[in-house]
């Protein structure tokens, strides 16, 4: 009876593992495999020429710019919001928390739309912007704004639970002994949140570099000017230039895999320390 039960649970175990592996291979591994094989279908030289194409390089640079801007902006926001929300009590805290989470629940297309409504031709701001010579919609600032929007709560979301769980005792003690705010943060708070902080930055980077919908609405698709890597992939694919499209995609795949590895390391180190 016991042995039979054990055998049965072993059977269930390997059945479930089998289903999981099959699912992951079809859904996650095969798409990556397709990107690599399609990218290299016309040989290594063609691949290299596709990824060193002038427009690809320009798109890569814009993607990096937008990603760096989003990471810096959302890191500053994340630190401030997490500090304000976990270190103090005030009315409307719940509402504030919900408002911060809005960007992840809104469709990227709507994210693009709202910036068009604020800065586009029909907006009352438009004449002033034009006078000042500032172009936002169908220009680089629009792309950066959209990228910041879609990754807005990524850092704060990782920090808030950690800050909440460590409590405020140590910081209060330090403050009572006369430590300055920045010193308290650097010496006491930051060591606790180091890994969550890095984790948030990694997630923010991953999402920012791959954002498609919101950026697509605001970009206007000008090659070499307002084209990010994902948008460049779209243009190539729609022009039936499949091999170059997958070659450009492979850059993004490599970046994504690097980020996933960093993410795993950060998560592992963070778990070990706590």
């Amino acid at each position: 009876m016991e042995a039979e039960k054990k055998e049965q649970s072993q059977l269930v175990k390997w059945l479930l593992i089998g289903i999981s592996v099959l699912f992951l291979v079809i859904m996650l591994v095969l798409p990556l495999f397709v990107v690599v094989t399609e990218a290299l279908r016309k040989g290594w030289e063609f691949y290299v020429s596709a990824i060193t194409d002038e427009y690809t390089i320009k798109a890569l640079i814009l993607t990096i710019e937008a990603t760096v801007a989003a990471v810096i902006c959302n890191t500053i926001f994340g630190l401030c919001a997490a500090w304000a929300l976990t270190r103090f009590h005030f009315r409307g805290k719940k509402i504030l928390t919900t408002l911060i989470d809005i960007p992840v629940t809104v469709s990227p297309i709507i994210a693009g739309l709202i910036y068009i409504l604020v800065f586009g031709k029909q907006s009352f701001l438009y004449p002033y912007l034009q006078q000042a010579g500032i172009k936002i919609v169908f220009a680089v600032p629009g792309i950066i704004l959209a990228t910041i929007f879609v990754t807005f709560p990524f850092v704060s979301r990782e920090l808030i639970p950690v800050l909440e769980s460590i409590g405020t005792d140590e910081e209060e003690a330090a403050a009572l002994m006369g430590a300055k705010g920045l010193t308290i943060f650097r010496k006491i708070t930051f060591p606790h949140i180091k890994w969550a902080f890095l984790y948030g930055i990694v997630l923010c980077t991953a999402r920012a570099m791959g954002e498609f919908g919101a950026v697509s609405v605001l970009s206007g698709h000008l090659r070499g000017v307002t084209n990010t890597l994902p948008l460049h992939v779209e243009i190539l694919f729609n022009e039936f230039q499949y091999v170059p499209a997958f070659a450009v995609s492979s850059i993004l795949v490599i970046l994504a895999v690097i980020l996933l590895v960093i993410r795993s390391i950060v998560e592992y180190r963070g778990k070990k320390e706590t």
Partner: protein
Amino acid sequence: MKKTGKRVIPGLNLTMGVTIAMLSIVVLIPLASLAVYSSSLGMKEFFQVITRERVLSSFYVSFITAFVASAVNAVMGLILAWVLVRYDFPGKRLMDGMIELPFALPTAVAGIALTSLTSDQGLVGKFFAQFGIKIAYTRIGITIALVFIGIPFVVRAVQPVLEKLDGSYEEAAMVLGAKPAVIFRKVIFPELMPALFTGTGLAFGRCLGEYGSVVFIAGNKPYYTEITPLIIMSELQEYDYASATSIALVMLFVSFLILFGVNAIQAHNSKRIKGGNS
């Protein structure tokens, strides 16, 4: 827990100021513009736009594909989380890391890869074409893309709860002679339910708004594979902001409903857990 007396920790004004300022500039003012702009539309016009046949059918396509994909994800997510928490096998850490791939991989890349995989000449598409099943450029294709997008949401919601689950109830049930299937249904599953709902709800919300991965695989035929975000996009390309805003408002309303539902489940659940402990 409530703190009374003087605040000793510094930085409230600074951090609060930065938080509110950035939140307003990036999120609140642009969102408000949506409300302001839509108030200039008449009620009649609004209803005319959102009840256009093409728009209604896009609501249906978006809803049904997101719903089916979320159902698949709920089941597969539960199995994956279970396998990752309860079993030991070679390659487990790799598997755990891979789950996050849909978060890290740009949606456009996922979109073109899945399209080429499931088209008639693709590896998977060829296999199913033998049976006369087309995947790419049909609703099945959209659903597949959404399964890809949604799976990490469910796994990452269920996993921590399963890890923290107290094994003693299971043991008690086993000692009392319950069959594994019964233990799962009566002891484990009720504990996982809220997390499963939360994860599936988040995945569903994300799927409704998804654009990048779907736009390639859908083929975008009106009345058949045209999803709502795509309709908004094409209205925008024709500079018809009034129609785009009207449709966006409906979508926004639905996603807030989902967010509200998910939060309600979470709040209810944390109350239940806290109540049990004290």
